[in-house]
C-alpha cells in the first residue's frame, strides 16, 4: 500500500467536494444557524431536566454539559466525514455505480468512506470545543498533559466506533438496497449519547452499552475530563474500538462477494 498515493488522492477528494459544497454558499450560512439553534435547543432541554431535579443519574448540570459538548464535537465529525459518504454508498449500490469504484486501482473502502467531505460539520466541532472550554472553566478543571493524552486517545476510539457503526450499517445496503432509513435509526439511537448513561433505567443502560455502545462514545471521554474514569474502562474502550474497526473491514470485504451490479 502506497501511503503517499492515498494522501494525494485524499487531498484531491477534499478539493473537489469542498468546491461542490462552496457552490451553495447560502446553505453554509443556514447550516451555521442550524448548528447554533441545535446546540441551544439541546441545552434548553437539559435545563428543563435540571429545573426539576438537582442531579440526573449523579451528574450535575455543569458536568452533563461536558457530555453535551463531546456529543456536539462527535456529531460535527459525523456530519463532516461519515454521513455524507456513507449515505452515498446507498446511491452507489442502487444505481450500480459501485462498479466504477471497484475497478479503480485504489482500496474501495477508502474510496467510499472518504470521497466526500461536508464543511458544515466544522461549525459544530467548533461550537462543541467552545462549550467544552466553557465547561473547563465552570467545573474548575485544569487538564494535565497525561489526561489530555487520555482524552485524545478515548476520543479517537469514540470516532473509530462511530465510523464503524455507520459503515457497518451502510454496508448492509448490498443486501437490502435501500437502507437509508437504517442510518436514521442509528442517528436516533445515537441521540441518547447527549445524556448521562446513568439517567436511564437499568435495562436501557445494558442495551446502550452492549447492543449499541453509545456509552463508550460520549461517556468515557467525559469521565476522563472529570478525572473519574477508571483504567479498565479506557482499556475496554480501546479493545471495543479495535474490534469494531476490524469488524467493519472484514464485513465490507465479505459483503462485496455478494455485490451484483445494478442496471448495467
Amino acid at each position: 500500500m502506497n501511503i503517499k498515493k492515498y494522501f494525494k488522492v485524499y487531498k484531491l477528494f477534499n478539493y473537489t467536494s469542498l468546491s461542490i459544497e462552496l457552490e451553495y454558499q447560502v446553505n453554509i450560512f443556514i447550516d451555521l444557524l442550524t448548528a447554533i439553534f441545535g446546540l441551544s435547543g439541546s441545552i434548553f432541554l437539559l435545563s428543563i431536566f435540571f429545573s426539576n431535579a438537582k442531579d440526573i443519574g449523579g451528574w450535575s448540570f455543569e458536568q452533563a454539559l461536558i457530555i453535551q459538548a463531546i456529543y456536539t464535537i462527535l456529531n460535527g465529525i459525523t456530519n463532516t466525514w461519515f454521513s455524507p459518504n456513507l449515505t452515498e454508498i446507498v446511491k452507489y449500490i442502487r444505481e450500480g455505480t459501485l462498479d466504477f469504484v471497484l475497478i479503480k486501482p485504489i482500496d474501495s473502502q477508502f474510496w467510499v468512506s472518504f470521497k466526500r467531505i461536508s464543511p458544515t460539520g466544522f461549525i459544530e466541532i467548533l461550537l462543541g470545543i467552545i462549550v467544552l472550554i466553557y465547561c473547563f472553566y465552570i467545573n474548575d478543571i485544569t487538564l494535565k498533559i497525561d489526561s489530555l493524552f487520555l482524552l485524545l486517545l478515548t476520543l479517537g476510539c469514540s470516532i473509530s466506533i462511530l465510523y464503524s457503526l455507520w459503515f457497518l450499517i451502510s454496508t448492509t445496503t448490498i443486501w437490502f438496497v435501500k437502507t437509508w432509513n437504517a442510518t436514521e435509526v442509528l442517528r436516533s439511537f445515537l441521540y441518547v449519547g447527549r445524556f448521562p448513561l446513568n439517567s436511564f433505567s437499568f435495562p436501557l443502560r445494558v442495551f446502550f452499552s452492549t447492543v449499541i455502545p453509545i456509552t463508550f462514545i460520549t461517556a468515557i471521554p467525559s469521565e476522563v475530563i472529570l478525572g473519574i474514569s477508571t483504567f479498565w474502562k479506557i482499556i475496554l474502550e480501546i479493545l471495543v474500538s479495535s474490534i469494531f474497526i476490524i469488524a467493519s473491514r472484514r464485513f465490507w470485504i465479505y459483503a462485496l462477494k455478494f455485490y451484483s451490479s445494478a442496471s448495467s
Partner: protein
Amino acid sequence: MFNLTPNKIGTLLKTQYSNMMEYRVEIALWAISGVIPFFMLNIWTNNGLNESLNISNIMLSRYFLSAFFVRQFSVVWVVFTFEEDALLGRISPYLIQPIHPFFRYFAQHIAEQITRFPFALIIAIFFFIFNPESLWFPSIGTIFISLISTFFSFLIQFLIQSIIACFCFWTEKASSFEKLIFIPTLFLSGLLAPVESFPEFVKSWVYFTPFPYLIDFPARILSENNVNIFSGLCVQIIWIILFFIIFIKVWSQGSKKFTAMGL
C-alpha cells in the same frame, strides 16, 4: 385550479400505496427511528423529574406514547423528494400534467402513513408489554378528535415543507432550510418534553408559534390529559389557512422562475 376528481384521487392513492408497499422494510425502520420519545420518558420517570410538575408516571408515559403516535403520522419529507425531483429534472413532466404536482406528494405521504400504521402498532404493543400499567383505551370520540388534530398537524407541516420546497426554484438546494425549521419543531413541539414543563419565559410566547400544535396538542388529546380542544383546533385551522395562502403565493411565483433541468 386543482382539477381533482375522485377517480384521480383513487388512482393516485392506489399507485402510491403499492409503491410504498415495496419498501416495507424501509418504512418499518423509519417507524423504529421514531422511538426517541420513549428514551425521553425513561429519563423523566427514572429521575423523578415529573414530581414537581404534577404529572403522574402513568399520565406521562401515555403522553409520550401519544407523542410517538402523533409524530409517526405527521412526518413529512416532501422537501427532500421535491429537491431530488427538481435536481434530476423530473419536475418538468409533472408540471405539464393536468394535476398539481403536490397532490402526487400528498398521496405519497398518505400512502406511507397507511403502510406505517401496523409497524407503529407493533411498537406500541411492545411499549405496553414493558409498561403494562400505562395501558389505556381512549374512547371512540377521543380517537376521532385526536385523529383530526393529528391530520391537521400533518397538514401544517406539509404546507410549511411545501413552501420550503418551492425555494428549490430559486436555490436548488432547499433541504438545508428544512433542517433549520426542524430544530424548533424538535424542541418546541413537545416531542422531547411536554410543553407544560417549559420554563415560563418560553411558555409565554411558544403558544403563538405553530410548534406546540404539532405534537403536544394532539398527544394531549389522545392521552386524555386536560386540554382545551376547541381553541386548539381553531388555532390549527388558522395556521393551515395562513400557510396555504403563503404556499399558493410562493408556488405561483416560483413556478414562473422554473427552468427545466436535466432533460
